[in-house]
């Protein structure tokens, strides 16, 4: 116990120092420090929770879904610990728990809601011992960091296979790679999925999204495609098919970036979030909420008043322009935000921010799997930005989309945007993770948007 208390003290002190010195939000370093003193500090703190935890993983949607689940639990009067600022490694989860721990080293909260990077899942599940583990999807992402999708899938498989009795896996049945994992588990998971072909495409938009049958190797046949390779699929030799989801979203209505609504498990849900990808996040949060004991009518009422997670989708006004900031970090995510911006929100003005720092992925070749062709003939202004703005300019050229000069500095990119647009215009800023941070920091410097650890 003494060791745990010492670890908590040291970690908390580090967090305070980091915030005071303005070196960011102090979102992971305290975890580092505390774990060095007591490697078991996270499992000890997690055991203090009066109700338990949920762990959320997947390539896209972790932060938004975790925020939704936290929103649901807090609204029902629970005290919630969550790693909010996208700090989703084991150190980030530890830091979040430390932040809510008292000086006696005890964590005073009811629920833990942890978004966890796919590769860290086995360790997180082992330490946190969650009541539920939610797997949203498995897309190709940041190949330079992880190697191949298969090695990530294997990690998730081993984590879910080791879940203790009484711990439920909540899985997206529409994702063939997630389904493959779930079908091999010792205890059956709870499957969820979309059920509305009116919002689906008939075929995979990208050859790169193709999936093969895990048993016979044949290319999977898709009856409906919702996002990336998520949809309704079947092996032509009947060796593998989408598991039947227990909880579904039907009658989906999408209104640009403004809102979406759907019948989830028979309850009408309406929420101020846009895009089909967010419909998956809302469905996942509903499934999580039900599993953690919340009533459908309460969930429906609470979600109406939701606010988006930091930078995932954020609106601000800057010199008379309405900026819509949307995180777009890999092909599946980018194609969806682009589709929402062009087709549903009828966007005309864009800033595309591409960085190649570690958190973005140092390999930018994935931009060639994003359909920037959607912008052709529709966009009036496109500003390529970020430290790889020049690569983005080449991508746009080959999509035959007119663009301004590439701008690698956030300030110059914003200036270029202001020059090319008029007051009253709406501008969609689609950015990778650190490109978004850079842009946001510049907006803060110019007196707009609050620093992120205050939101």
């Amino acid at each position, binding site marked *: 116990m003494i060791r745990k208390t010492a670890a908590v003290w040291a970690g908390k002190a580090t967090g305070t120092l980091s915030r005071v010195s303005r070196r960011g939000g102090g979102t992971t370093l305290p975890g580092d420090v505390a774990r060095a003193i007591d490697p078991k500090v996270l499992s000890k703190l997690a055991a203090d929770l009066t109700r338990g935890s949920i762990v959320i993983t997947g390539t896209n949607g972790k932060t938004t879904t975790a925020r939704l689940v936290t929103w649901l639990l807090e609204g029902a009067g629970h005290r919630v610990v969550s790693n909010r600022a996208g700090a989703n490694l084991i150190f980030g989860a530890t830091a979040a728990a430390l932040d809510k721990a008292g000086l006696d080293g005890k964590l005073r909260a009811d629920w833990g809601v942890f978004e966890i990077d796919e590769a860290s899942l086995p360790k997180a599940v082992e330490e946190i011992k969650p009541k539920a583990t939610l797997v949203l999807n498995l897309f*190709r992402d940041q*190949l*330079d960091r992880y*190697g*191949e*999708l*298969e090695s990530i899938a294997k990690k998730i498989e081993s984590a879910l296979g080791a879940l203790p009795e009484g711990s439920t896996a909540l899985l997206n049945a529409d994702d063939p790679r997630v389904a493959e994992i779930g079908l091999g588990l010792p205890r059956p998971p709870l499957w969820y999925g979309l059920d509305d072909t009116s919002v689906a495409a008939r075929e995979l938009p*990208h*050859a*790169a999204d*193709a999936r*093969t049958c895990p048993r016979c*190797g044949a*290319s999977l046949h898709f009856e409906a495609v919702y996002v990336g390779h998520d949809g309704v699929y079947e092996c032509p030799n009947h060796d593998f098919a989408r598991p039947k989801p227990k909880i579904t979203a039907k009658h989906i209505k999408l209104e640009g970036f403004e809102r979406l609504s759907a019948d989830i498990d028979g309850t009408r849900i309406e929420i101020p979030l846009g895009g089909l990808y967010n419909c998956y996040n809302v469905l996942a949060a509903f499934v999580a909420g039900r599993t953690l004991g919340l009533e459908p009518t309460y969930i429906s009422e609470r979600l109406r008043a939701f606010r988006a997670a930091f930078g995932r989708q954020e609106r601000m006004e800057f010199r008379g322009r309405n900026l819509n900031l949307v995180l777009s970090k890999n092909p599946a995510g980018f194609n969806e935000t682009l589709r929402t911006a062009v087709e549903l929100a009828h966007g005309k003005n864009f800033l595309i921010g591409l960085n190649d720092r570690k958190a973005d992925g*140092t*390999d*930018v*070749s*994935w*931009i*060639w*799997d994003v359909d920037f062709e959607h912008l052709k003939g529709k966009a009036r202004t496109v500003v390529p930005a970020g430290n*790889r703005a*020049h*690569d983005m*300019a*080449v*991508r746009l*050229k*080959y999509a*035959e989309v007119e663009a301004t000069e*590439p701008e690698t500095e956030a300030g110059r990119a914003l200036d270029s945007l202001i020059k090319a647009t008029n007051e009253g215009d709406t501008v969609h800023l689609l950015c990778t993770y650190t490109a978004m941070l850079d842009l946001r920091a510049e907006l803060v410097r110019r007196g707009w948007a609050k620093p992120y650890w205050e939101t």
Partner: protein
Amino acid sequence: MKKTFTVGWLYPDLMNIYGDRGNILTLLKRAEWRGFDAKLVELGRGTTSQMDEVDVFFFGGGQDREQALVYEDLLEFKQPPLERAVSNGAVVLAVCGGYQLLGHYYLTAEGEKFPGIGMIDVKTEAGKKRFIGDVVVDSDIETITPKTLVGFENHSGRTYLGPKARPLGKTRLGHGNNGSDGMEGCLQGTVLGTYMHGSLLPKNPHLADYLIRSALIRRGVDELSPLDDSVELAAHERILLRAQHHQHR
């Protein structure tokens, strides 16, 4: 009548992990912008149709699971028409997994040998460390300017060239074929193999034109009209600047 230019994409659904569509788009658009009727033929599993019409074949990289699925099909369906096309002057660009499969064999860490189709005189062995990062090559191809090629590598295979293949160039930055002899890629007749993606051709428009030109010689085209490559070369230049920065660190 418009002259045609045809790109054949080998296994677009399975061997397409590193934004390989960029290479396809670059070849097609650069032909189209010059007034050619540019066509794409997708060569998935089980098909050989139109392979004799292809000017440039592209063969990309895949994950292990997909690469194993491709291998049998390559031997059964694609190898004979591919060899025929190349002997008639068609060009092949093979990246990463595709590069390895066109060689003699791939030797795994456990000592298991997977034969390739032996179109190029190279062999590959599994290595421990994965080579990941920017690549800058000083190319040995005489007819291209600038002489540099830029890309991104991500592979654990170590590829060694036999006497019939010559390297694409020397690495100024990155590990290249095997991390030991300072060479990247291979060129053997009209077959070009490399570990560079990123995608390779968009930021190397001069290499894209070299491939198009090499394939069209047999159709009596020996000169391509110039295009404005300032956007592509600015992106190329950015990588060269970063490479200098790496060296000074």
